[in-house]
């Protein structure tokens, strides 16, 4: 089949914001829980605080995650949770990736 007839739309429609490995790990980590703090995500995604902070900012700007300011005792505490929109995006990402991988075959 000539290259021009190949359908790349499925790949091009992959959400690049989620596809980046560290952000994918952050999204996956938040997807399976209700909420978590920075320390938990640093451990789970195995990335530095600086990197995590940058990724969190991008995901928050996109509306994929929400930052909740709360208190533990008298001390302020920040919890991160995936927004409803973020959950839909992540589900869609997983669905698309599965589809691509299934179609790709073994080669």
């Amino acid at each position: 089949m000539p290259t021009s007839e190949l359908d790349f739309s499925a790949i091009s429609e992959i959400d690049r914001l989620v596809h980046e490995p560290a952000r994918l790990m952050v999204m996956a980590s938040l997807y399976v829980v209700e909420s978590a703090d920075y320390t938990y995500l640093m451990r789970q995604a195995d990335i530095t605080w600086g990197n995590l902070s940058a990724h969190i900012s991008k995901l928050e700007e996109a509306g994929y995650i929400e930052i909740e300011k709360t208190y533990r005792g008298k001390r302020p505490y920040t919890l991160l949770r995936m927004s409803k929109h973020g959950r839909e995006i992540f589900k869609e990402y997983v669905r698309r990736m599965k589809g691509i991988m299934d179609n790709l075959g073994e080669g």
Partner: protein
Amino acid sequence: MSIPLNLKELERRAFRRNYEDGLYEIYLGGMLISFSVFAFNIFPGETFESQVALTLYLCGMGLSALVFWLGKKYITLPRIGLVKFGQQRQKRGRDLLVALTVIVSIQVLAVLLQFGVLAFPELRAKVAPFLGDQSGMPLIVAIVAALFVAPGMLLIAYFSEIPRGYFHAVIISIAIFMMILFNQAWWMVAGGVLILVPGIEHLVRFIQKYPLPLEDESRANQ
């Protein structure tokens, strides 16, 4: 350590990490050892004055709970962070609660029935022939007592998905069985130590594996 990108496994590992600190074992082992102080007074040849035994027992229980609470607050939480688990995990917790309630209710009924039989001499006289030769009684009581404890502990292990929980269930059931069969509270102490010592080892490993975050990192949570 690489973590497979499997959502169920990711959640399970995150949950199990809460138990990596060994504090649950320290708490459980401490409780068993504390209870054995109490048990020493149940068996012949009182080791302590009853008030001393009760005080030691309550202090031991209190100390175990305090170590658990302080450990979680000052050792575990700053190292692995805080996480609220999702609905599926909460449902497992609720299922465990229901299952434990059913088991404990059956056990309470069995105990009440036993006391009921003992309270009425006529009833006791009627039941006695069915018990037959009383020489095997300690063995039966030991088996029943072990069977009282085992299901609850196994359920906790199953619903919590903590493999070490099965080991705790076996150790505690054997300790109770041996304690009753041989009339010696030392079996309970041994069971407590067998759970407590690995707990301390897990705690040391946990502290080495998860160092405290740097100052900037810990401020990120605020």
